[in-house]
């Protein structure tokens, strides 16, 4: 197993915050661990200077941590919205893009996608997004038809903002609506109504956004089957291009993960909600191309597919994670520390791990099998070689119709998606 170690170049006074992503869950770093050696090195690039991308086209993730209010189910790295902090963050972000572009191998890469995630990226003004994208384009070659996405919340957008985003080069909007139930929305900690959600969607369309995705959630407390199918139907009637539907998970880093929440539906009902959505989306011409994602033909999220193909991506912003070569590394999560480190001229990498070939194969399998495309059958064969017991268990998945071979590829069925972690435990 690769060691996950903390490297805190030029700074180490404050401990990294625990939470999601690359947490420092591993034991003390081994003395031979490469990132540790680098911690003492003068390079402002840390572990990223010690690796090189295997491919030429990379994704670029930008984390915008600020939120007007943190949703109760959310476990991502967020910070309360504050104008001063935002200004400082933007400065640091530009420094980070600049520093990344001076990596020894930066000249060899082209960006194929850019994704603004959060947090609430739609708190960024159009000109702020434009400046960031301009900086990226100055520093990195970007492919002509690059996918540029921004996650938006209904209460922080308008037709004008969408138009501004479009002019800045944004060509994909991911709208987080989560629910269309006005009694449920405030219980999730959301600041908008169902009407606001609809209005935001229409505003995006009116602004000429041709690729709009909608995020919704099921398995929510108090959500019954009728409520869910109704919401799904309404959302489908809007005719979005892409749909992400997440079953509620009580993550440790969320408020609900800590306090618990009453009224969660029984597992059987959550399963019914999964199938109700799968059936309705398919009937509307969507393909169920990943465990929680549906797209009209040609509208899959290219950026997210980079993750599921275990391909490479750069990242900027507090807590943002990059994957280059065999290194996955994550930035410091607290916004002040993120900013300070960049202000001193170093990348704010707080955690990193170097994947062993075995771990890489495991990840390629468990990420690839999240998608309807699946993985080359040879990967599975390689993983199961010399382990007849495990091979037998995986064969059972095929016999049960959960896993299927198509030509030289193998993929989970929709029924298989629903229990996929049980297979992934076998494949790691």
């Amino acid at each position, binding site marked *: 197993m690769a060691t*996950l170690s903390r490297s805190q170049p030029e700074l180490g006074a404050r401990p990294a915050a625990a939470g*999601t*992503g*690359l*947490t420092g*869950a591993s034991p003390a770093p081994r003395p031979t661990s490469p990132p540790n050696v680098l911690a003492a090195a003068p390079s402002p690039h840390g572990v990223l200077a010690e690796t090189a991308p295997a491919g030429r086209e990379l994704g670029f*993730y930008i984390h915008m941590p600020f939120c007007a209010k943190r949703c109760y189910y959310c476990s991502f790295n967020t910070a309360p919205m504050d104008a001063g902090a935002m200004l400082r963050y933007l400065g640091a972000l530009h420094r980070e893009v600049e520093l990344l572009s001076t990596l020894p191998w930066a000249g060899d890469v082209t960006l194929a996608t850019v994704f603004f*995630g959060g947090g609430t990226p739609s708190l960024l003004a159009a000109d702020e997004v434009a400046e960031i994208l301009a900086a990226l384009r100055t520093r990195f070659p970007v492919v002509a038809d690059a996918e540029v996405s921004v996650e938006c919340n209904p209460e922080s957008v308008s037709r004008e903002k969408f138009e501004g985003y479009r002019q800045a080069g944004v060509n994909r909007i991911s709208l987080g609506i989560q629910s269309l139930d006005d009694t449920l929305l405030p219980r999730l900690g959301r600041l908008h109504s169902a009407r606001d959600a609809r209005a935001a969607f229409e505003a995006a369309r009116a602004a000429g956004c041709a690729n709009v995705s909608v995020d919704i959630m099921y398995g929510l407390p108090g959500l019954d089957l009728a409520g869910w199918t109704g919401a799904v139907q309404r959302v489908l009637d809007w005719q979005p291009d892409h749909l992400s539907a*997440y*079953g*509620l*998970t009580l993550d440790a880093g969320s408020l609900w993960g800590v306090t618990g929440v009453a009224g969660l539906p029984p*597992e*059987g009902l*959550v*399963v019914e909600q*999964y199938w109700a959505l799968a059936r309705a989306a398919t009937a509307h011409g969507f393909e169920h191309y990943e*465990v*929680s994602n549906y797209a009209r033909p040609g509208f899959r999220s290219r950026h*997210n597919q980079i*993750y*599921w193909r275990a391909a490479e*991506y750069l*990242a900027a912003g507090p*807590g*943002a*994670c990059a*994957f280059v070569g065999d290194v*996955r590394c*994550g930035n410091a999560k607290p916004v002040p520390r993120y900013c300070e480190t960049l202000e001193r001229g170093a990348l704010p990498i707080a955690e990193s*791990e170097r994947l062993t070939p075995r*771990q890489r194969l*495991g*990840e390629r399998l*468990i*990420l690839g099998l*999240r998608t309807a495309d699946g993985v080359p059958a040879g990967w599975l064969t390689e993983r199961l070689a010399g382990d007849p*017991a495990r091979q037998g*268990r995986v064969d*059972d*998945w095929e016999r*049960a119709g*959960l896993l299927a071979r198509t030509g030289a590829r193998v993929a989970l069925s929709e029924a298989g*998606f*629903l*229990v*996929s*972690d*049980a297979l*992934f*435990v076998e494949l*790691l």
Partner: protein
Amino acid sequence: MTLARTRNFSIVAHIDHGKSTLADRLLALTGTMDAKKAVDQVLDSMDLERERGITIKAHTVRLLYRARDGAEYTLNLIDTPGHVDFSYEVSRALAACEGALLIIDAAQGIEAQTLANYYLALDANLTIVPVINKIDLPAADVEGTRNQITEILDLDGDEALAISAKYGTGVPDVLEAIVARIPPPQGDPEAPLKALVFDSFYDSYQGGVVYVRLTDGRVRPGARILLMSNSRTYDVQQVGVFTPEMRPVDELSAGQVGYLTASIKRVADAKVGETITEAARPTAEAFPGYRDAKPMVFAGLYPIEDTDYEALRDALEKLRLNDPAFSFEPETSLALGYGFRCGFLGLLHMEIVQERLEREFNLSLIVTAPSVRYKVVTTAGEVQEIDNPSKLPTPDRIERLEEPYVRSSIFAPTEFMTAIYKLAQDKRGEHRSLEYVGRGVRIQFDFPLAEIVIDFYDKLKSISRGYASFDYEFANFRPSDLVKLDILLNGDSVDALSIIVHRDKAYEKGKALVEKLRAVIPRQLFEVAIQAAIGSRVIARETVKAMGKNVTAKCYGGDITRKRKLLERQKEGKKRMKQVGKVEVPQEAFLTVLKS
């Protein structure tokens, strides 16, 4: 060194009443070891013993004490194991003593094991010196404890010593009391050698090291000795005492306690309770009460990883060298593959062996439901002994089944009699006798061994608020109406889960068993039917529903590492599962059988 200046004693107590602390104090006070070393409680030397707060192996140590009368005394402290599985070993260790210190916690007063140990010491005709410990505690009630000693134990509470072993208060008086109150050993150094083996261990250089108490005669290196139970002879290589390190001496003589080595290859050749004498001039009679410590309970031990089979065998070999009451032989199970049938004194013994295998040898094991050894008379007139229920012949080939019975003694205050009789009835006990002893009763029952090996002692302790003591020994085999109860997972019988039960209890047991299994078998991709059956008749059924949902909703970017780690943790848990047919069965399922 004369017999008049020798004292052989043990310390007995309820758990946590301060036995080890007092032992350390005595060692430090007599300069047997320096105070710093004494910080480690030397007597309970195995990790496992310290954790469980019980002594598994007996230990012994010689203290040299200059008493207030100016004379130097040799005090041999013989430590005893502390659990019913080892009651025979306790009785032999006590037989090597003339007296016992009975420690009572001043704050807790007399408790269950205080009483049980008191009776054991009485049985061994020991002089009992009551010692009230922990008088430094704010909750200490010395006077109340004295009254208890007088009322419950029928000893003179006013003569009890009041001490704090922790701070050393009163401990010098304990040493004086050992000298003054415990009688010196009797014996004739000129008579033929007669020595009792009360413990042994295996040393890879010297072979079996045997702990002995001499009652008559003397023994030196070069002497030819005879073991009376098996008529084997050996040449003594070394004799010595424990200081507590082993220290060779020229000679051990009547009344003394020490060890001897004689190239004894296995400790099983010189078992606890054995009488050692001179080959040329044997003593007339062996010590009474020798019992060939035989395994009473049998269970299959299987490696979770098939590749660990050889490692398991090596580990079992090593354990057997040091443990005469433990046996093993290879066996195979349709469900579990290759493993070993192992024999134990009782359940605690089994758990200890399992823990040592997992801890000291780093093996992951499945332990099957324990079984006693049954006698089968077949229709062809053959007599077979069966210690694995799956080996039982089909009913049409069985003429008669017999099960082992034990004769047991229970000591308890009279107020618990009703509850004890009820428990005995539940456990198919046959009442034999009742006598009043002091302020309690001693009841004898005959029990089917199968009824008492598993949780009887725990139940007895619970219904008597811990006051009842329990001891048993094998009596005989008796015909019994027994049936084999099979457990089926999705229609396939799992041999490792089969048990033999009395027909009257089969239904209740089968029902309890499938309920427990349903709780421990995790959900799988498919529904799992758990059935209990006698022959082809299903008597109970439960279902583990198929897994409905087991999915990570979001998996993007940096979260990949965290998700992978979560799955890796689950994978670690899966390593404790054994695949039986298509069903993954966790380790604990096999032990569920005995806890239902």
